[in-house]
C-alpha cells in the first residue's frame, strides 16, 4: 500500500494528546502523550484497568471533551480546536456513540430515540429520517418495538436501540463505551454480533472494554495503562467466542 493510499485510509489520527483533570486542586493526568491512528473500516478495542484513561480517550475521540494539548485529525481535518457547535456537527455526522448504560431518553419512544441525532441535521427530510430509522431498527432487529418506550424494553433491547441510534446517521466511526457492561452474557453476545455484522459491512468501530472476550472479537487491541498506550497489536486470531 502506498503512503498516499495509507494516508487516505486513516480516519482518526491523534498526536501527542495530553489530558489533565483538576480535582480539588489535585492534578490528575488522565492521558499522557497519546499517539494513535485508526484506519477506515478498522475494529479496535481499547482495554486496560479501571482509571487507566480509556474512557477519557474515547471521549476525546468522540469530541465529547477536548485535550489540553496535542493534535486530533478526523477524516483528514484538524478537529483539536473547534468550537462547541462545530464539534457538535461533526459528532452528529461522523460519530456514532454506544454507551454502557444505553442512555436512551425515557420520554421518547424507540423510534424517536433513533431519530434524535437525525433531527439535528438540516439535510434530511422527515421521510428520509423515517426511512433511516426503519433501516437502522431493522439492522438490530428492533423495528417491531418502534413505538415502545425504553422502560418497556429489556437491557439488551435497549442497547440494540442505542446501536440503531448510533448507526442511523451512517457515521464514519462508531465509538462504543463498554457496550456489554450492563448486559448478561446472552444479550452481550447479541450486541457483539451486531457490532461484528456492522464491521463486516465496513463500519469503523472503536470500543472500550474490560471484557477480554469482547476485545478478542476486534482486529486490533490497544492497552492503556496510567494514561499511556502500553500495547498496540493486531489480533491475528479474531474468533467469535461462542457462549
Amino acid at each position, binding site marked *: 500500500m502506498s503512503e498516499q493510499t495509507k494516508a487516505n485510509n486513516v480516519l482518526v489520527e491523534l498526536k501527542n494528546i495530553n489530558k489533565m483533570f483538576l480535582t480539588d486542586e489535585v492534578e490528575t493526568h488522565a492521558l499522557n502523550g497519546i499517539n494513535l491512528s485508526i484506519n477506515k473500516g478498522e475494529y479496535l478495542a481499547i482495554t486496560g484497568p479501571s482509571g487507566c484513561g480509556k474512557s477519557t480517550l474515547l471521549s476525546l475521540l468522540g469530541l465529547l471533551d477536548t485535550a489540553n494539548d496535542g493534535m486530533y485529525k478526523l477524516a483528514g481535518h484538524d478537529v483539536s480546536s473547534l468550537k*462547541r457547535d462545530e464539534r*457538535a*456537527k461533526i*459528532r452528529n455526522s461522523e460519530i456514532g456513540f454506544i454507551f454502557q448504560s444505553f*442512555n436512551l*431518553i*425515557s*420520554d421518547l419512544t424507540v423510534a424517536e430515540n433513533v431519530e*434524535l441525532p437525525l433531527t439535528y441535521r438540516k439535510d434530511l427530510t422527515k421521510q428520509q429520517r423515517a426511512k433511516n430509522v426503519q433501516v437502522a431498527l431493522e439492522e438490530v432487529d428492533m423495528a417491531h418495538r418502534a413505538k415502545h418506550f425504553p422502560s418497556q424494553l429489556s437491557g439488551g433491547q435497549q442497547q440494540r436501540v442505542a446501536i440503531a441510534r448510533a448507526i442511523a*446517521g451512517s457515521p464514519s466511526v462508531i465509538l462504543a463505551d463498554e457496550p456489554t457492561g450492563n448486559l448478561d452474557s446472552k444479550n452481550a453476545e447479541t450486541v457483539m454480533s451486531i457490532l461484528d455484522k456492522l464491521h463486516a459491512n465496513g463500519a469503523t468501530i472503536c470500543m472500550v472494554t474490560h471484557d477480554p472476550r469482547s476485545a478478542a472479537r476486534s482486529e486490533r487491541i490497544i492497552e492503556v495503562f496510567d494514561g499511556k498506550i502500553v500495547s498496540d497489536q493486531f489480533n491475528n486470531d479474531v474468533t467469535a467466542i461462542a457462549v
Partner: protein
Amino acid sequence: MSIGIDVKYAARLLVKKPAFTATTVFIIAIGLGLTLFAYSLLSSLIFKPLTMNTNQQFVTIEGEYDYSHAFRRSVDPFHLNQAVQEVDAIDDITFHGPGTALLSGLDTNVGTKKFNATFAKWNFFDVAGQQPIMGRDFTEADNFDGAEKVIMISYEVWQSYFKGISDIVDKMVNVDSEPMRIIGVMPENFSFPSHAQTWLLMPANQINPTKPSRNGAFGIARLKNSSSIEKLNQELSHYNQKAIAELPEEFNWRMRNNSGIYLQATAYKKANSDVREYYSIFISLLVVVFLILLLACINVGNLLLTRVNERYKEIAIRVALGVPRQRLIFQMLWESIFFCAIGAFIAFVLASWGIELTNAAFTRMFAVQQNQPFWWTLSIDADALLVLFVAILFMILITGLIPAWRALSGDFNSVLRDGTRGAMGKKASQTNQVLVISEILLSCIVLVIATILLTTSYFADKADYGVDTDKRITARLELPLEYYNVRRDTEFEAADNKKRNDFYYQLKSRLEELPTIEAVAYMTQLPGTGEGTSHFEIEGMEAEVYDENPVSNNEVIGRDSWRAVGMHIIQGRDFDDRDAVVGANSMIVNESIARELFPDGQAVGYRVRQISSRGEGDWQNIVGVVSDSYHGSAMDTSSAQYNSYHLMDARSRQSINIAIHYKGSELQAKQTLFDTLNATDANVAAYHIQSYQQLIQHPMMLVTTVSKIFLFCGVMAVLLAASGIYAVSANSITQKTQEIGVRRALGATDSNVMKLFLSQALIQLAIGLGLGIVLSMWVIKALQTTMIINDVSYIIGLVGMPLLIIAIVLLATFIPAKKVVEMEPSEALHHD
C-alpha cells in the same frame, strides 16, 4: 436511639448549608405567617361566630341587603314579633336601630357632644347576655307610655364624658335636649350591637305595633345550639310567604326587589355592612393567602427535592447498607420538622406584627366616626394557633413526603453502579413539569388578583371626584329635635322647615363673613362620598319599562354651595329664592346627564321626575346644569355618574353635611366652625369634623388597608414565584444534565439544547398562564360585583403580570440551561 441519631443528622444538615436553611425557613415563615394572619383577620371579622358569654351564636334578622345602595334594610318590628312566634330555631329576639345621641346638661365642662346611640327593645341586654356593672337593666316598664325616659351609657362614656363620677347612676342628662335618667353603666369595652356608646329605648309603639307599620328595626337573636342558620332561614322563608301574602298594598315597598325575601337570618359578623360590601375582597384575600401557602409548600418541597437530588448517592449508599425505607422517610421528615418549627416561630412573630399593624389601621379608620365594630380587634387566639399547627403538619407532610417519595423511587442500583443518577425518569420529568406549571398557575392568580386590587385601590385613591378638596373641612351638623322638630302634615310644617333652614343659612352667613372663610356648602352627601341611585324619567323620553330609565344619585343642597367645593354652573342658573317657594320643584342636573340624555346637551327647561317601581313621582323643572362630580367611592359599583340636585329649602333636613373652604390652617378652620356654631346655636352639634381629603379617603380605608395586605402578598408572590420557578426549572434542568450530555453526544448544538428547554418552558407557560388567567378572571368576576375595576388595572393585571411571569420563567430556564450547555458533553454524561 435511632431517633436521636436521625435528629442529630438532620440538625447537622441544617447548619451545614446556612443559605439553603435560611431560604427554606424564610419561605415557610411567609407561607405560615400569612396563613396565621389571614385566619386571624377573617375569623375575627367574618367567620368565627359571635357568641359573647354563652355558647349560642348571634344571628341578625333583617331585610335583604341592598347592594345598589350599600345599606342594610330594616324590617317592621310587627313582622319580627310575629316571626319569633313561628320559628323554632331561636327562643327570643330583640331589635335595635342605629342613631346618635347629643349629650349635654351635666356639669362636665365639655358641652354638647355627639355619641353613637343604639335604640333598642327593653330586653336588649338580656339577649346580649350582659348586665350593667352599675345601676340596672332596662325593664318592660321603662317602655310604657308616660314612663320616665332612661338611658344606659357605656363605660367609656362614663369615664370620658362624665369623668368617671361615682354617683353617675340616677343622674339626669339631656339627650338631644330631652332630659333622661342614666340608669346604668355597661362593662368596659361593651359596645354591642357594634359600636354603641349609649343605649336608649325605642318607643313602645315602634316595638309592639299591632299591624304592619312604617317602623324599621334590625332583629338580633341567639340561635339554639340544636339549630342552624339554614334551618332558621327555612323557617323564616315559610313565614315570609305568609307575611308577604298578608302585607297591605301600601307596604309593598318593603319588597323592593320582589325577590320574595323579606326577613332573613345572617351570621352576625357577616351582616356588617363593610363585610357585606367587600365580602368578595375578603374571600379573594383568603384565596390569595391559600395560594401563597401552596406556593410556599411547592417551593420548600422543591428545595428539599433538590437537596435529595444532591444527596441521591448518599441515600443509595444508605439503602445499600440496609437502612429501612421507613427510617429514611423519617430522616427526611425530621429535616422538614426542623424547618417548619423554626419557620412557624418566625411566622408567629410576623403574624403578630401584622395583626398589630392592622389593629392600628382599624383604629385610624374608625377614629373620626368612632364606629369600629367591637369584634374588629384582631388577636391570635387558640383557634388560630390550632390552624397554625394544622398548617405546620400540612407543610411537614408536603415538604417531607415529596422528597422522601422521590428519594425512594429511584434506581439505586444504577446510581451505585455507574456513579450517575441515570437519565431522568419519565415520572420525575412529569413531576417537574407539574411543579413548574403549578408555580406558574398559582403565581399568576396571586399576582393578577393582587395587582388588580392594588392598582384599582391606587387609582380610586387618586380619583378626581370633580371637586376641590384642598383647604376644605367637612362636618356633619345635627339639629336637636326638641328645638328643630318638624310637625309633618300640619299647618306648622312650613314654619318648622323654615326654622331649620334659617339656622343653616345663618350659620353660613356668619362663617362667610369671617376673613378666614371663603365659602360654605351644604349637601346631604358630599361628592366622593355617599352612594345609591334612583331611576328617573325625562318628560317626553320615558322608557317603556321602569328599569330601562336612567338612574341618578340625588342630593339635597343649600343655595350657593358650588363654589365651596369647586363646582360651577355651566348652563342655566343656580338655585335662588324662586326655587324656595312651595311647588317650585326645581332641580339642577350634572353635565353628564345634560350631555348624554338631552338633545344638544341642553337640559334646562326640561321636566324630570324620580320614579318608583309603581311609576309614581313629581315632575321637576331643570333650572341649571352643574359641572360633573362623583358620589360614592371610585371603587364602588354604586358610584354615580349622573347626579341630580334639589334645594334644601324645599325639604328641610335634621342633619346635613357642611363643607367649608377656608384660608389659613385646618385647625383654625375647625375652631372657627365650633365658635360660630356655638354663637349661632349652642344646642346644635357638629361631628365627624375632618379634612375633605380624609372624608373621601374614609370609604376607601378598609380597601386601602386590605390592599396593603395584598401588596405584601403580591411582593411575596413575586419573590416566591421567581425563586420557586427558578429553583424548579434549575432542578429540572440539572436532573436533565445527563440527557443533555446524550443529546450533545448525538450532535445537538447549543441552540438545539436551548430551544428544547425554552420550548418546554413555553408549553408550561401556555398551560400555567392559560389556566391562571381563566381562574383569575373567575375571581375578578366575583370582585366586580362590589367594585369597579378600571381599564389600566386590567391591563396591568391581565397583561403586565403574565408578561412578568413569562420573563421570570424564561430567565429561570435560560440561566441554568446555559450552565448545562457550557459543560463538556463528557462531563454532562457523567454528571453526578
